[in-house]
């Protein structure tokens, strides 16, 4: 793989438009966690014109529900969850200024269109690499919805969090392009 590109949050448009599918990145700075239940609440706030519990502009949202941290740990295991379940909510968050998403798995066309329209990028992290990814989390604090437990929104400080550009600002999709590239014909039977 080519050498990883370093990204610092909050993300700048010029950093994002330079990224192409298949690029390896190392993300540093503050990122926010949110998964199913938190998304439902965030979108309710946006739909009724209320403020979000954190500044979303230029930021990355990471789809993760970590395991509980042991004493002395910043976070427990913390790999990505399946992104597709967030698809119904994602365009609204992109309209509200979100610039990056970290998750795993393919996205539906409406999300890809919204990523292009809002010049945002979808990053894939390795599902099931919860321990490896947790090592890049230097600090963690809950910023909203503590009662949701693993689904609470957390602010994470990450250093060199490894991910791959899965959908870029031009709407290229590695879930389609990558599969096309390696698909082999069936043997004739």
């Amino acid at each position: 793989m080519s050498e990883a590109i370093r990204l610092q949050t909050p993300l700048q448009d010029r950093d994002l438009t330079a990224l192409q599918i298949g690029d390896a990145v190392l993300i540093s700075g503050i990122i926010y966690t949110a998964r199913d239940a938190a998304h439902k609440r965030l979108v309710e706030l946006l739909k009724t014109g209320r403020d979000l519990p954190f500044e979303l502009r230029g930021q990355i949202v990471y789809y993760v529900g970590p395991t509980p941290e042991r004493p002395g740990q910043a976070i427990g295991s913390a790999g990505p969850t399946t992104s597709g379940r967030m698809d119904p909510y994602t365009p609204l968050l992109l309209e509200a200024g979100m610039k990056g998403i970290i998750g795993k798995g393919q996205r539906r066309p409406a999300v890809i269109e919204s990523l292009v329209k809002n010049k945002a990028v979808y990053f894939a992290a390795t599902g099931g690499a919860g321990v490896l990814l947790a090592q890049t989390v230097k600090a963690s604090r809950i910023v909203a919805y503590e009662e949701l437990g693993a689904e609470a929104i957390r602010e994470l400080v990450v250093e060199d969090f490894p991910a791959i550009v899965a959908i870029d600002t031009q709407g290229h999709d590695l879930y389609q392009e990558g599969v096309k590239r390696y698909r082999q014909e069936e043997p004739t039977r």
Partner: protein
Amino acid sequence: MREIDASGVTAAVRRLCIDANNLLEEDVMAKLEEAIPKEESPVGREILEQILTNDRMAARLGMPMCQDTGVAVVFVEFGQDVHVIGGDFTEAINEGVRQGYRDGFLRKSLVTDPVIERKNTKDNTPAIIHMQIVPGESIQITLAPKGGGSENMSEVRMMQPSDGIEGITDFVVDRVRRSGGNPCPPVIVGVGIGGNFEQSALLAKKALLRRLGSLNPDPIWNPLEVELLDRINRLGIGPMGLGGRTTALAVHILAQPCHIASMPVAVNLQCHAARHKTAVI
């Protein structure tokens, strides 16, 4: 008749929850290692390396390899000459899950009702328990934590006998194709054939427990397992769905007799964190 105290069941289940989540079995590790030199995609190789590094770190640090520590699926082979004393057997298992998920710092991933409130049960209970009465005077417990990502990509189809092997093959391959990166490939594909509607699903799940690299105990299924694995790995899905050759590590089939009118087929996908541990009391 042998007496077994319920507290012993709880202690065993507690330990199994922690070990299953932290220590990946050698057969899975070996299959992941084998896949790396064969993987043509650089992104795919990098992902496989990350997975292996992660799984070794999990064992070393005593942390769960994946944050989705799953629903506790418990397979019990209960010796008919055993008498459980000192408590309720089902509750003893659930108490073991409660303690294991608490003491192992595992994620509690169950909600009370599936639709209306979806409030976390906060202790990862209830476990899903499959009981089988067998001869003997011991209890064998296999604990298999199952994550949501791969479980969500599973399916049962009531096929017709005339659909034959070809129908089954197309269904299984298409189920993997439609799942893409969602079930965290490389996956293990459990296929249950026969029984009835619910039994086929259970067969598919039990098929996942077979040791990777082992032949099917019923040799009539070996050619189909080989063909399915070949076709699945031609799909191009690759590690985490980003393109590559390694989409599945294995296909395991488990079959049993069924009704003359039926041919139920179930596909249970298992992510690369193929976790299960067994204890005998």
